[in-house]
């Protein structure tokens, strides 16, 4: 892939993210979010980060989109929330302004960054995750349990306290 392909991926990623936030229809917004994830995963593949690319597609573009669609389904009815039009209209102004600032700051910082290179790395991924960052795995297990318990707590019966 070349430079132009990469720029296309970046533009797709940001473009679908913009759509996801500004689209009126919730379902279309969720699907834009999924597309944004897919572009992000392709960016990861371009950088040869295969593991996280696959994980991003299956979990973020897959699981999270399913969760969003389930929630949208469970909360339908009683009319839509009317979003104000003004933020959408003035957004391009802010966007261009920020883009300009962004480019200026990045160019300024580019000349000043000295960095350390750090220790050389083991190239074998499973060894890194299991062998070097095992505490993260404990944390992951904890976080998953916490999420499960939180959802269980929120959907339990007979707990209302007004």
């Amino acid at each position, binding site marked *: 892939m070349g430079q132009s392909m990469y720029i296309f991926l970046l533009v797709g990623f940001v473009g679908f993210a913009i759509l996801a936030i500004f689209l009126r229809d919730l379902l279309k917004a969720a699907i834009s979010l999924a597309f944004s994830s897919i572009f992000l995963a392709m960016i990861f593949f371009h950088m040869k980060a295969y593991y996280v690319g696959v994980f991003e597609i299956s979990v973020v573009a897959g699981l999270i989109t399913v969760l969003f669609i389930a929630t949208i389904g469970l909360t339908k009815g009683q009319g839509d929330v009317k979003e104000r039009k003004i933020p959408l209209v003035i957004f391009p102004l802010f966007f261009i302004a920020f883009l300009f600032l962004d480019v200026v700051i990045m160019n300024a910082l580019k000349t000043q960054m000295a960095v350390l290179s*750090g220790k050389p790395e083991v190239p074998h991924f499973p060894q890194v995750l299991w062998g070097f960052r095992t505490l993260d795995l404990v944390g992951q297990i904890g976080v998953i349990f916490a999420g499960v318990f939180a959802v269980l707590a929120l959907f339990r019966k007979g707990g209302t306290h007004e």
Partner: protein
Amino acid sequence: MLFLFIAIPLAVASILPLLGKISKRVLPDLLGNLTLVFLLGYTLWIGKELSQAGGIVQRLEWLGEPLAIVLVLDGFSHLMLFTVSSVALCVTLFSIDYMKHYGEKVPYYALFLMMIAGMNGLLLSPDIFGIFLFLELSAIASYGLVAYGLGHDELEASFKYLMLSAVASGFVLLAIVLLFGLTGSLALGDIAMGLRALPPSPLVWVCVAFFVMGFGLKAAIVPFHAWLPDAHPSAPASISAMLSGLLIKVSGIYALTRLLFNVFGVTPTLSTVLLYLGTLSMVVGAFLALGQNDIKRMLAYSSISQIGYILLGLGAGNPLGLLGGLFHIMNHAMAKALLFLDSGSIERATGTRDLQKMGGLASRMPLTAATSVVGSLSIAGVPPLNGFWSKLLIILGLIEAKHYGFALIAILASVLTLWYYLVIQRKAFFGKLNEIWRGVVEAPFWMSASTVILALGCIGIGIFFSPMLKTWISPAVEILYGGTVHALNFLGL
């Protein structure tokens, strides 16, 4: 075995849902409390080993093969561990009676133990991403706990808390990315060495700013405090006690202090920033607490104010100020938890949190009134309670560092604090007994017992403040004052 601090709460939390129907009434309470008794005992026991060794590094092994879990304990984390386990134990004792009206207890204790595991993991982790991960763990558990009552207020408060907290975590992660980019490593020791070796660059300042914004929101420092006055009143009283007394200190103040002092190295500019933030929190919190009629909301604003005091102590930069700041972390945790638990007792007995409606409850609820007075006087800084000593040390530290203006503001804010706490006490407990409350009885056994334990703790620490300072706080101060040198501990050297 430092790993037990994380593993035991996690393990107990995971087996809780597997309990049968019959044991569901007693076993969650029993297991929850036993876990905390174990944690507290283990903290005290490991203190002996710590004082001999000066710092414990544990490398886990699995069947002879080294597993890459490294956990580090030093004076500062040990102080926080002790505060967490002692206050949390009292809160779980309180929960035995308090949670009877909330339906199923199993999710509550499971989430509670998860929160404890997350806090312990944060305290013991030598790795900056580990800090983030366990921070998120206790945060997710707290989102569930704040909304536990499933009432309108609780859900709204939990949602706003979640949104703001997620953005704060985002900023923390951005700062971590920048640090990783600059130094190439995620271990705190490596980062400290790396930052010293690099020439000063604007990116380091951006990192510090992001960390202050992110952890500042978790610690409810003004101007990032907006979520706290909504989240703490709506949550169940035991959870308000945990959040206000422990979570904002562990996930906010501890993380920020550890990074600023031991990794970045505190410079005079950083100290000044801390002083200004602290003063802002102190004053804004105190003023906003004045007009409140909801007792828990007032306590929440008071927490914001007291966090300001802690920041002032930390910003003073000298050992006296650090001594006062760290001591205040422990004292405020105990006293604020005590006050929130008492407010829970009042709410359970009278069904309201509105101070205008209360009056003269002391004659019907003597224990609650007495412990509440102890807690209020402690926070207001009245001798010989523990709060007095920590506030005195902070003010002395400020004076010694020639920050006379800040010291004066701190004294004035202290007077304000004393005033509004006395007003609350008078409105709620003393004065004429409001006729509606004639039938009210004292809180159930465990609720009163836990508040009495905390009150005795406040009094005891106040009287025995000198040995407390020597054994618990001084080692922590050495670690922080030593600055980035101590980051080498985290390399396991």
